């Protein structure tokens, strides 16, 4: 019988080839920059990360989740048993039967994969991925039949040499795709790279229900700032790119892609893979970047990414909304990679598009993005009689005003919030002219030097004073203060104003009437929701106003960006539609007359949509509108006035 001696030989040689492939792949990753990881504990944690954290993401799609469990589970089990039964030749009926069962399981899974691939949605890549379900079927069927004699169901030598040849071909195909392809670079690469990616993830905090969204600081003394060529990425970032399964969930969620801007997160990650391995994108079988044809991108580990591989406009289209990262079943960090490459463009090339250069110059010269006089930061509050930290030195709450202080629309939000703080008798103070831009925009535009300078100075100012918590109405400042100032010695308890107001309401420190008006929907700001997991407080607050939120289809962690993040309105990359318009269509679909928002940037973007459209209001404004000012503080106010007059 041919197979008796051929099968172990095939198995052994495929394993050897796979090993060679693995060595090659690993060496590609190792060309990246060092990044310290704990190898042992990473590997130990890997199964749990796979079975729990990753599965948690995959499970959002029940069909695919079950299919994957069957296929992948069946495959892993089959492969182990194949080695035992057919390579080591352990003659055990039990093992053979187990192998039969696992290959049946895999076959069943594979048929579902096949069904899915019959009429695949556009987000899925085609090309070799269309071959995969067939490979899966061939692999499972072949080994099922080969194992039948071992299980004693069929006599040895059944079917003669014709069947033996067919089976041998099946073995070569199946093993080639499933084992050799796994390490050398076929569709199955995702299993190998993915497993290691989970083990050596750059943000291990994300596993086990944690959250890690702050960008990592740039070493400003490095010879090249940011990522110029693929090898400038950390090695585990390169590994992460290789883990991509091209499922296109990111593409389906990306607001820039939907708006026809030249960005497709999936394609971007695949371009990174081209970069790390060398080659062109001619074989890429998914949706291209809108407006950019396939086949022209070329790259290699040591060639500049933005010259030939990725158009800079692609990088600048990103709103850093993190929808892709949230959606990625492989937990790939798209935003990190994009900002890394932006850093090179800004810090090394001086090539920030649109008004980017102007905004950065203003931030450097005036600490605010629009070049206003730094001493006029408190003008909005001339009539508010706010306590300033430099005078009081100490307060319960530090109110971080943010650059909304310079914008007339945002000032309405600030005033509304101050009204609430006063009504609740909160002991709060502001930094006044000592406050600077949080650095959010500078950092997302890639200018980490300016970000770090702003952050250090802000931290130095705040560390002079004593306060328990920081509250801000700007989710971008909220995120930066909470998650990114830690690298510069600023560790604070930071709250978004919706969280804080919700607390006040729950404690009964402010009395509210009921909201009057039609249907209300709520838009989750990316930097509040996906970046910081705050979905509940705004909704609880709205409920406290007697509002039943008519949720948009894309809400919560799947909320669509307003288009205002990541400096996107500044770099202003043209697309076919505007993201804000699409978001307003989402709101219109709920029939809402009012869009409640918790972010001044979102307010500005959504109000920029041409009327007729629903009204846009910050939650602070909605709450302040129905605030019942109790008699007691009012009389006190009169006393104060009397004192002032006297």
């Amino acid at each position, binding site marked *: 019988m041919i197979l008796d001696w051929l099968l172990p030989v095939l198995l052994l040689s495929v394993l050897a080839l796979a090993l060679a492939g693995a060595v090659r792949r690993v060496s590609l990753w190792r060309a990246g920059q060092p990044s310290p990881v704990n190898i042992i504990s990473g590997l130990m944690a890997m199964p749990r990360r796979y079975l729990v954290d990753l599965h948690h993401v995959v499970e959002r799609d029940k069909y695919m989740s079950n299919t994957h469990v069957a296929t992948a589970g069946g495959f892993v089990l089959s492969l182990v048993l194949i080695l035992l039964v057919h390579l080591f030749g352990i003659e055990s009926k039990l093992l053979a039967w187990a192998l039969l069962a696992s290959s049946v399981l895999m076959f069943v899974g594979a048929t579902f994969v096949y069904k899915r691939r019959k009429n695949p949605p556009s987000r899925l890549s085609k090309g070799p991925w269309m071959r995969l379900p067939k490979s899966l079927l061939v692999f499972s069927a072949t080994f099922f039949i080969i194992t039948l004699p071992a299980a004693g169901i069929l006599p040895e030598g059944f079917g003669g040499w014709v069947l033996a040849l067919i089976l041998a071909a099946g073995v070569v195909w199946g093993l080639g795709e499933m084992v050799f392809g796994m390490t050398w670079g076929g569709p199955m690469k995702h299993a190998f790279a993915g497993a290691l990616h989970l083990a050596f993830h750059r943000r291990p905090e994300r596993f086990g229900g944690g959250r890690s969204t702050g960008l990592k600081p740039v070493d*400003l003394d490095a010879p090249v700032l940011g990522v110029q060529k693929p090898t400038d990425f950390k090695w585990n970032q390169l590994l992460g790119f290789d883990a991509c399964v091209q499922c296109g969930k990111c593409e389906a969620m990306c607001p820039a892609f939907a708006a026809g801007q030249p960005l497709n997160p999936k394609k971007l990650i695949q371009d990174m893979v081209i970069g790390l391995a060398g080659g062109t994108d001619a074989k890429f079988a998914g949706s291209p970047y809108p407006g950019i044809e396939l086949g022209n991108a070329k790259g290699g580990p040591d060639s500049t990414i933005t010259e030939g591989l990725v158009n800079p406009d692609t990088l600048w289209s990103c709103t850093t909304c993190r929808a892709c990262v949230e959606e990625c079943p492989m937990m790939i960090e798209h935003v990190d990679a994009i900002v890394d490459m932006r850093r090179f463009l*800004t810090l090394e090339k*001086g*090539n920030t598009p649109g008004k980017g250069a102007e905004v950065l110059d203003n931030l450097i010269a005036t600490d605010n993005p629009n070049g206003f006089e730094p001493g006029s930061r408190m003008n909005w509050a001339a009539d508010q009689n706010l306590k300033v930290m430099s005078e009081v030195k100490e307060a319960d709450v530090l109110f971080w005003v943010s650059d909304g202080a310079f914008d007339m629309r945002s000032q309405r939000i600030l005033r509304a919030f101050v009204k609430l703080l006063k009504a609740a008798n909160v002991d709060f103070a502001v930094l006044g002219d000592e406050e600077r831009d949080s650095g959010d925009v500078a950092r997302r535009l890639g200018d980490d030097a300016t970000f770090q300078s702003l952050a250090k100075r802000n931290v130095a100012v705040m560390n002079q004073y004593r306060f328990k918590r920081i509250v801000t109405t700007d989710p971008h400042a909220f995120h930066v203060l909470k998650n990114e100032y830690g690298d510069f010695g600023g560790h604070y308890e930071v709250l978004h104003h919706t969280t804080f107001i919700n607390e006040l309401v729950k404690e009964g420190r402010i009395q509210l009437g009921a909201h009057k008006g039609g249907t209300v929907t709520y838009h989750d700001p990316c930097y509040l929701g996906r970046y910081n997991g705050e979905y509940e407080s705004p909704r609880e607050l709205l409920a406290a106003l007697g509002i039943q939120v008519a949720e948009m289809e894309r809400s919560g962690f799947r909320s669509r960006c307003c288009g205002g993040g990541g400096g996107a309105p500044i770099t202003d990359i043209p697309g076919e539609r505007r993201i804000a318009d699409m978001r307003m269509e989402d709101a219109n679909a709920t029939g809402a007359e009012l869009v409640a928002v918790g972010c001044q940037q979102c307010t500005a973007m959504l109000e920029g949509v041409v009327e007729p459209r629903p009204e846009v209001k910050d939650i602070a404004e909605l709450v302040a509108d129905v605030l019942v000012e109790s008699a007691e503080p009012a009389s006190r106010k009169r006393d104060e006035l009397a004192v002032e007059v006297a």
Partner: protein
Amino acid sequence: MQPELNIVALVSVGQHPKSGRARRAEQDARAVELGLRLSGEKVQVLHAGDVAEESLRSYAGMGLKQLRVLQQSAGADASLALGDYLSEHQPDIVLTGVRAESGESSGMTPYLLAEKLGWPLVTRIADIAKIENGEAEILQALPRGQRRAIKVRLPFVASVDNAAEAPRQSAYGPGRRAQLEPLPWVEAADEVRASFDEAPARKRPKRLKMVKAKTAAERFKAATAKSQGGGGRIMKDEPPREQAQAIFDLLLEEGVLR
């Protein structure tokens, strides 16, 4: 690009009009930009002052390998040092800004240099269109976006107007790495300037419209004259022809139709 040209761009320390913080000066940066476009990295950028000045890095960040600094203390007359250096090195073109953003801001530096070198001076240029056979074709910026063509033989001094092409973005990394080369230089104290009394700018009083009426009737008219503003003329129901005529008359009156 004319790599064989020897171009020197003079830069000073600018000042942001709102915050007063040191920065790269807008016009000087345009001079550097023009130099970069004319002769690439070969353009020589020169500053008279302190090599430790941080804002010089933002010029370097435009892609300069090095920046030469004639060491001068704060009270020295920079135009003398620059004049000495330039007459020693004899470049083909000297580019400066029109007016500095800090210090006296008199705008005299290009004039003094041209006088000292005995070279022609072209003021407020927007661009150098071409340089051929030792002659440059220059576009001079006139008010309201107008341009005048001027021909001048090399060498010359030119002051670069705000109408020139905006300077490229200054990148942090190259700016850090560029070499600031200090040249010890003789300095002459600016004694006239030492006698200046400098203070933050006061708000200038707006000139009031004085009414010098000769007769009671004129005085009465002046006192009861309707104040300006308070809404313009609104044409609502006139036919489009008349409306267009009204607009057209306004355009004629303002003299914007050429």
